[in-house]
């Protein structure tokens, strides 16, 4: 089922000039002080993201992919290396790069439409414009009927769609998605994959999507960067040259999944071997 997304930039009042943003992550290192030693989370991570690209960061849990995303978002200024948004260095959070977290973090004191309009209210947009834009994005995630629903009345999938609409409402060039669908059941996730792909196609956003789910990465990404376990490094890049909309059952997609899983398996084995060796040596 392909639902026609409503035209977004049809009226002149709402349209913004196309931003020529390319994200560039250059030799980023991140570590923090643990109990006894310094923990290296990211080690020399570099990659570029082209405008309008759908990039997936794939890695085992604890590989620092979520950390990397919050660095790109500007929510954590403490790292070495450079992250460029266009030609400007990332210095702090910006509505140009909005994160969608695994936990939707909707504000329970606001109803659905107010949540979506939150970022617009922070920009002091006039009320009428706010309402019109929020309603538009509400329709885009197919929740028009739930305009005035309370947050606790929504299912997990619906909450995540509201979070997506809330992020889209401030018209960021880049969406940073941090395992947004990991807590959802498989059917809801499939549905949201379709929706996200449609929204991406109609809004021309650049998306950096973090996941530990190989099939999800292959289903969605133009490109998949496989990361190593801690300290996180980019192990390998896979370009997914498959037509869209893709199907999980597609033979070619299954082939990609197999290849990437094998790559990840080697990495997981390496980590396990290291841990076993560590215990053989007497542990802590």
């Amino acid at each position, binding site marked *: 089922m392909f639902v026609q997304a409503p035209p977004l930039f049809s009226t002149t009042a709402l349209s913004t000039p196309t931003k020529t943003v390319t994200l560039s992550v250059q030799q980023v290192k991140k570590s923090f002080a643990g109990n006894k030693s310094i923990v290296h989370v990211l080690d020399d991570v570099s990659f570029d993201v082209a405008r309008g690209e759908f990039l997936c960061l794939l890695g085992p849990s604890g590989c620092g992919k979520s950390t990397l995303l*919050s660095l790109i*978002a500007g*929510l954590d200024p403490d790292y070495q290396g450079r992250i460029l948004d266009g030609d400007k260095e990332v210095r702090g*959070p910006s*509505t140009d*790069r*909005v*994160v969608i*977290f695994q*936990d939707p*973090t909707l*504000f*329970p*004191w606001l109803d659905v439409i107010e949540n979506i309009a*939150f*970022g617009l*209210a*922070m*920009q002091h947009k006039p009320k009428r414009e706010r309402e019109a834009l929020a309603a538009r994005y509400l329709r885009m995630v197919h929740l028009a009927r739930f305009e005035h629903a*309370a*947050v*606790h009345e929504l299912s997990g999938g619906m909450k995540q769609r509201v979070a997506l609409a*809330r*992020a889209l409402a*401030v018209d960021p060039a880049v969406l940073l998605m941090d395992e947004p669908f990991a807590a959802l059941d498989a059917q809801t996730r499939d549905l949201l994959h379709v929706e996200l792909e449609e929204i991406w196609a109609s809004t021309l956003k650049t998306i950096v999507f973090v996941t530990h789910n190989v099939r999800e990465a292959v289903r969605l990404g133009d490109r998949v960067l496989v990361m190593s376990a801690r300290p996180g490094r980019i192990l390998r890049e896979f370009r997914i040259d498959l037509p869209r909309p893709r199907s999980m059952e597609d033979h070619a997609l299954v082939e990609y999944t197999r290849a990437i899983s094998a790559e990840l398996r080697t990495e997981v084995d390496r980590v396990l071997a290291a841990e076993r060796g560590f215990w053989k040596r007497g542990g802590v």
Partner: protein
Amino acid sequence: MKKSQLAKFFNQVIFFAALLAAWEILFRLKLWAPYIFPSPSAVAQSLVGGFMDGSYPIAIGVSMMRICIGFGISLVIGLPLGLLLGRVRFLSDTLGTVLNGLQTLPSICWLPLALIWFGLNESAILFVVVMGAVLSIAIAAEGGVKNTPPPYLRAAHNLGASGWNLYRHVIFPAALPSILTGLRLGWSFAWRSLMAGELIYITLGLGQLLAMGRDLNDLAQVMAVMLVIIALGLAVDRAVFSPLERNVRRKWGLSPR
């Protein structure tokens, strides 16, 4: 009414009827003189009489006015203070510890000081009431602000909220459930302080009726006034604070209490 609620209601009716009956039986056994242990009917009579001759309504009016003014002042001082303490680390480390220490002091202990500072008048009692409520309101507001879930703050920052906007649209609403709990607590502290204050010195009000009952050796009046004080305390809690707190907690998706 649901079946379980109906059962609860009947249990309560039976329990209180039994309690009254036990009281009356104890009275009829004449174990104590009537002026030491009045009968339920004497208390009821005193209660009705107090309302009929206008002394209870006046006392209730005066006490309620005092607590409303005192609680209002507490709110105006305590809430901004708590919100500030929650965000300014320096204040919380210094002034915050003082407030936490003072909160352990029963507020009626301020009365001697208040009498000397303000004299024998309304201001003294208001001061005691304010000292009873303001600290719990400030401390609850501070806690609410400090416990704003970091994910809310991250999301809000990311969506462009900062400074006053962040405070007004994210931190304050996030802290509201615990602020309401603080108000409820503050009100009950204020009520206790007021009764203690009126009992010890100040004219008019429910506390003074209690003291008068003791002076006249009229324990029926003392008990009747105690019942009125309990009823008022419960009524305000049930009519104002409980529903407010419950509604907010439900809307915020927090566990019902």
